[in-house]
């Protein structure tokens, strides 16, 4: 027996070249450790990325890796899964790569439910091109290309994924390995496309943009770690989300002091798309940020259906020599 793999066994000899303090370091460590925890086989694991800071990820993972072109990582990963469905494939993308130039491919890889994991590092900014606003930037974001503040309405990654038909949607924070690691494990175990949005701190161009819920002082108060079958409580169980049947939305209520009891609190059902939709689109003001596995509702994975539909599991059962003779064949004899 070989010695068990450690996180170090998933690191390469390449010097990591993200900015000092970049959230990507924490995510890289978390992924390497998680793969060691599950004793993944580096030769059966593939990281596929597009373009951007996050997309340097494969170079630092001791596994197969493909650093492709901007926005298209899901399509390379799809082709790869068709060629070899046994591979454990991870797509690493960012808010620009995945939701702007590659939005179309993200949509299709999710709705097809290809059995792979998509890790979207969301830092609400373009890092590699030096700080322009991204499709997840909040309106008013000042950047080299929006000196007066951006005017676009941002896209919610989670709501987009749900709308695209994703069957697994989860969220985590770059530096919160304790909560991110189990989410990554769950994503890996899920048969189908798992979408994980990771809030990532771009220390240079969008520092602390998630501070309102990531900052250690506010994290407990402002993060809601959902669990299937458990009430949607946050702030150490002192607050919760209560369904408002009049508006078909949820209210954030205080338990005890606020007059609500724990039995009033909506119980999380990770297979319920309506609850997922509400959690994904909670207003910023007065509401916590839902974290963890928000939606998990399995359906047949594309790479399996693909080979069922094609028959023979890709095995060659016929011969071209016979196929040539299909249809009307006539013989010509030269006198």
């Amino acid at each position, binding site marked *: 027996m070989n010695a068990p793999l450690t996180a170090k066994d998933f690191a*390469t*000899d*390449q010097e990591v070249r993200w900015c000092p303090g970049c959230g990507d370091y924490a995510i890289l460590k978390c992924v390497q450790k998680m793969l060691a925890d599950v004793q993944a086989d580096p*030769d*059966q*694991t*593939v990281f*596929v990325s597009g373009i951007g800071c996050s997309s340097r990820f*494969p*170079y630092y*993972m*001791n*596994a*197969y*890796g*493909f*650093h*492709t*072109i901007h926005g*298209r990582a899901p*399509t*390379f*990963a*799809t*082709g*790869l*899964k*068709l*060629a*070899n469905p*046994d*591979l454990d494939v991870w797509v690493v993308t960012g808010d620009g790569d995945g939701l702007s130039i590659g939005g*179309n*491919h993200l*949509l*299709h890889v999710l709705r097809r439910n290809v059995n792979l994991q998509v890790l979207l590092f969301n830092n609400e900014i373009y890092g590699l091109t030096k700080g322009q606003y991204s499709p997840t930037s909040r309106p008013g974001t000042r950047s080299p290309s929006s000196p007066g503040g951006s005017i676009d309405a941002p896209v919610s990654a989670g709501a987009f994924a749900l709308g695209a038909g994703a069957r697994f949607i989860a969220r985590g924070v770059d530096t919160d390995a304790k909560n991110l690691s189990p989410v990554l494990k769950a994503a890996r175990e899920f048969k189908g496309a798992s979408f994980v949005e990771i809030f990532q701190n771009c220390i240079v161009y969008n520092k602390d943009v998630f501070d309102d819920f990531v900052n250690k002082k506010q994290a407990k108060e402002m993060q809601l770690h959902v669990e299937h079958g458990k009430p949607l409580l946050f702030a150490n169980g002192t607050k919760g989300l209560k369904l408002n049947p009049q508006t078909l939305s949820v209210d954030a209520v205080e338990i005890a002091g606020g007059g609500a009891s724990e039995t009033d609190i909506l119980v999380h059902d990770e297979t319920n798309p309506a609850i997922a939709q509400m959690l994904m689109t909670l207003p910023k003001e007065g509401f916590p940020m839902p974290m963890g596995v928000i939606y998990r509702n399995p359906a047949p994975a594309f790479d399996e259906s*693909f*080979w069922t539909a*094609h*028959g*023979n599991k*890709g*095995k*060659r*059962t*016929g*011969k*071209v*020599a016979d*196929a*040539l*003779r299909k*249809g*009307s*064949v*006539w*013989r*010509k*004899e*030269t006198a």
Partner: protein
Amino acid sequence: MSKIAPENQSIVVRFAGDSGDGVQLLGSQFAESTALAGSDFSTFPDFPAEIRAPIGTTFGVSAFQINLGARRISTAGDAPDVLVALNPAALKVNLPLLQKGALILLNTDAFTDRNFAKANIAADPRKTGELDDFQVVEIAMSTQTLEAVKPHGLSKSDAEQCKNFWALGAVLWMFGRDRKPIEDWATKKFAKKAPTALTGNLAALNAGHAFAETAELSAEIPQFVVGEAPMATGDYRSITGAEALSLGLAAAGELADREVIFCSYPITPASPILHHLTRMSDLGVATFQAEDEIAACCAAIGASFGGAIGVTSSSGPGIALKTEAIGLAMSAELPLVIVNSQRGGPSTGLPTKTEQSDLYQAIYGRNADAPLPVIATAGPGDCFDAAIEATRIAIRHMTPVFLLTDGYIANAAGPWALPDMKDFEPILSNTPPAAQNDATERKRAIWNRDPSSLGRPWVAAGMKGLNHRVGGLEKDMETGDISYEADNHQAMSDLRARKVEAVADFIPDQDVVQGNTKGPLAVVGWGSTHGAIWRAVHDVREQGYDVAQIHLRYLSPLPKNLGRLLGCYDKILLPEMNMGQCATLLRDKLGLDIIQLNKVSGQPFKITEILDAITANCPAKAKIKAAE
């Protein structure tokens, strides 16, 4: 009753009607019967871009042309000798194409004021004298069809739909053909439809045949006698370029013993390849209809990274979208076959019309110095061999390869001598190295290129002990690690250029199709012009002109002997369906003077157009002396 044996042993028949009239079916079944009669033939469907254009309009006219003969047939023919026109619009659109004295069979039931208006025809052409140069036979085809079909209980509109079978019956009689194979085919085709569909259509077929044979009009309907064409002994079938290309890709998979994963997005005129391949799963082919052209190309590259033969296919506009991904496959040194079914351009252009105008795109159309092998197919049956050759180059040299075909080849059909799979060498991949634990050793093994082909080992993701990273950033030549070193980038750019040049070491010398290896004039072509050039050169040679035909399969790199060979002719004439792209290429690579013959009308070359250019450029003194 007159029986005519066509003077030059071949005859061109064109069927034309509304796009909903079943003209393509009529034509393809006539072609099938021609095949069984042993004549050589070449067909070309000519249909509108609209699926169902407004009935009766000129832009809704669909046509099918067949050239058949008792000699070698190399094109679908210049000018039709026979036109079957199912409505006035079909007559109006096709009349200018006809040979003087051509026979025209008209469906008079459609010659109404209403239909004249739809086709913007001011006066009944039968009364204006514009048909005076032709032999016109007027038949009430719709009425005859309705009469024949009446006992079978079809609705009037369904019954009228049978008129293509009626016309087919009449034409089968004209050419002395057996109806039985058509009946057998129809029995299969209509097996799942209401029984009246079969009985109605067969009744129409028989009625058309009987009408031509027995009606008093038959004195006006000539019979044509087209004998068997000399062809090598063997088994033949009729095949379109799209189908032969699909079978060729499947054959390449078999020869390489790998899955073929074909990733495509629907586009005219490339889609038939997707349709054919999707029915070939038993041959180890899987098709993936991607969300767009880019995704199709990237998925094919992903499949190659996983060890399957990744193939993508499109037409010019779609190829443009794939460009960035093709550059990545080149940089990552992964095999990929890119099929371009060229159509009329630029931009959306003429989707259903043919052109050869994506040669620059294939050879030069990428950012930075990104050379790739480019090969072209010369005709429908040749697509089979070309697809195998493209795959072989892609795998041997670990590179994307362009395979150029076009709308004409994709849809044209002709008899094809079935190849023997035993004649094809297996397609061998560069052997992957043994598993390596040492990281540096592993990298060096993965990028250890074959010194003759410069292809690296094909290490598929998932292979034990060989994990590695690839990407589009410049990489160190030996380790594959990201490298911004100046010398390395120069060395890698040189390597990529040399790799394409190295392909020339593996391809055959350029041959001469017809004629001598030197002389006053060589007609050089590539792609689908092969047939028209062949006939033109053949005919002038019979008249004694010393002209040679040279046809290029390999466009990048060019065969090593090409410059020497072409240097042996006083003049080089290059007909191509673009504004001079191959001519520019040959001037650039070989420094030769080229006489261009360019045509971008969306239609293939006529033989006469090439004939005229040959005689204009070949002095009479160059005629071979009769005594020789």
